């Protein structure tokens, strides 16, 4: 090794620590944190027929005279027009209920996988993750075909004699719940599994030895011990669903008003960038508490595999 190269390597070793920290830190600061500052700024601008379609927040009128125009109308509009408030509320409700649905189906599945024989576990887990690797958009698309009025679900229900006329499911709130449950189930199951697979089963045996019935032991031992997994899974489902766009757009109907879809429409159809920015700020505000929660959880679990 030449002397220069050796010296360069030593220097690199010396700079290792600051570079390892600074490169990803700066990247995230520039492309993740800074954008929010700009969103906030543009949410206070006025829409305009210029390119880009918003007014500048400040400009120099004369030497030494800076004019700043802050426009609160976007937030005013969101406050006054009940459309936005009901979309926000509906998004929270849909997210909360779908989180519950994911938990109701995901918990027993995660429990069954965690208690399955060792050699089955890897396969079962793989089958949970596998759909996640195929296209999300196409998986939502699959449900359009299934839920149509002449689709296989209605055919099946008609053939079984459970219904007489085809049900209208597609383009309703029900279809949105089905789509969310389908797409987000793995996000619930994986943290629950990670939690349940580390459970000390001898605690349950102890409970049984002390005369506790299996269901009582589940409620008093297993459930409290898996609270961390429940919280992690719920947040992983709840937060993105509040802002979900694709599922309400493709499966939902006119009554499925969700904030993510509204933001998309304001931006792409109405070309009202400042209003879209204001909606993004509000959505971010709603998600602040769940964010802090998941952050705490991550810090606590961060060191563990």
């Amino acid at each position, binding site marked *: 090794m030449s002397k220069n190269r050796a010296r360069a390597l030593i220097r690199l070793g010396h700079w290792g620590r600051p570079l390892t920290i600074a490169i*990803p830190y700066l990247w995230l600061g520039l492309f993740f944190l800074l954008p929010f500052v*700009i969103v906030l700024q543009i949410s206070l601008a006025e829409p305009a027929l210029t390119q880009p379609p918003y007014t500048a927040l400040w400009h120099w009128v004369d030497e030494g005279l800076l004019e700043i125009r802050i426009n609160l109308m976007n937030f005013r509009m969101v406050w006054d027009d009940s459309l936005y408030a009901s979309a926000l509320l509906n998004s929270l409700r849909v997210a909360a209920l779908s989180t519950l649905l994911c938990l109701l189906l995901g918990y027993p599945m995660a429990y*069954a996988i965690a208690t399955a024989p060792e050699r089955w576990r890897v396969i079962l887990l793989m089958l949970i993750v596998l759909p996640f690797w195929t296209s999300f958009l196409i998986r939502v698309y699959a449900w359009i075909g299934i839920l149509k009025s002449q689709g296989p679900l209605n055919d099946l229900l008609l053939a079984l004699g459970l219904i007489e006329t085809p049900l209208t499911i597609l383009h309703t709130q029900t279809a949105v719940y089905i789509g969310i449950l389908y797409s987000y189930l793995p996000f619930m199951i994986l943290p629950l599994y990670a939690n349940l697979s580390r459970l000390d089963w001898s605690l349950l045996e102890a409970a*049984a030895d002390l005369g506790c019935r299996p269901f009582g032991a589940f409620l008093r031992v297993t459930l409290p011990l898996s609270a961390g997994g429940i919280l992690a899974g719920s947040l992983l489902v709840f937060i*993105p669903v509040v802002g979900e766009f694709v599922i309400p757009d493709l499966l939902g109907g006119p009554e499925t008003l969700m904030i993510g879809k509204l933001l998309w429409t304001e931006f792409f159809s109405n070309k009202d960038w400042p209003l879209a920015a204001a909606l993004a700020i509000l959505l971010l505000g709603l998600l602040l508490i769940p964010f802090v929660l998941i952050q705490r959880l*991550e810090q606590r679990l961060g060191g563990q595999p």
Partner: protein
Amino acid sequence: MKRRRWPLLTVLVFGYAFLYVPIGLLILYSFNESRLVTVWAGFSTKWYGELLRNQQLLEAAWLSIRIAAVNATLAVVLGTLAASALTRYRRFRGRTGFELLLTAPLVMPDVIIGLSLLLLFVALQETLGWPASRGFTTISIAHMTFSMAYVAVVVRARLTQLDPALEEAALDLGARPLVVMLRITLPLIAPALLAGWLLAFTLSLDDLVIASFVTGPGATTLPMVVYASVRMGVSPQINALATLIVAIVTLSVIIAGLALRPRRRA
């Protein structure tokens, strides 16, 4: 103690049926002669032929694959740096903020990431003149920003499991830190790097919302074409595309599974 397993097994069977029946139907109807996707009219592979002649879709697919490859490669570099920073340096100024910035992209709704990055790119263009136009570069940057967070999770899990004695031994034997990294650490975390790369690749290939925001005229990715087509109604070509994607994913998972299987020592 014998526990009753049948209620759990029922849920498990139902759950897996729920996950896989839609994919099965998607594949089945891709071989359907009829244009009305869900009415069976005989076996046909004509939709695959149409798919392969769909120039717009093929071009979009090629663009998406190139973006996904660039994104995955750079996201692995950034994500691995971030993961090492968190596992190697227990304390540094701004660590909490760093962790926050690294966790938030995992759950942040796509519409927020997309809109905020677009507004950043527009503001940068106004003040610095860069990026001159939006497309390949801006989509790749946007994808790297959230992909690196996923890579960091995967690599961090592997780094924390690593036995520090291996690196210490190499250092004690006189290897320089960089040599230790290249010859000890990187080979040990290689499976995580591969998993992270594949994850970042898939996430990028799959993204509709963020790419729609940050793209410009002329750069249409595969999900955008699929979305436009799906909005017009069900189309058997999309079923054919779905079947191909499922086939590729299944094949890669099997290959990766065989390649990464822990080797038994003789």
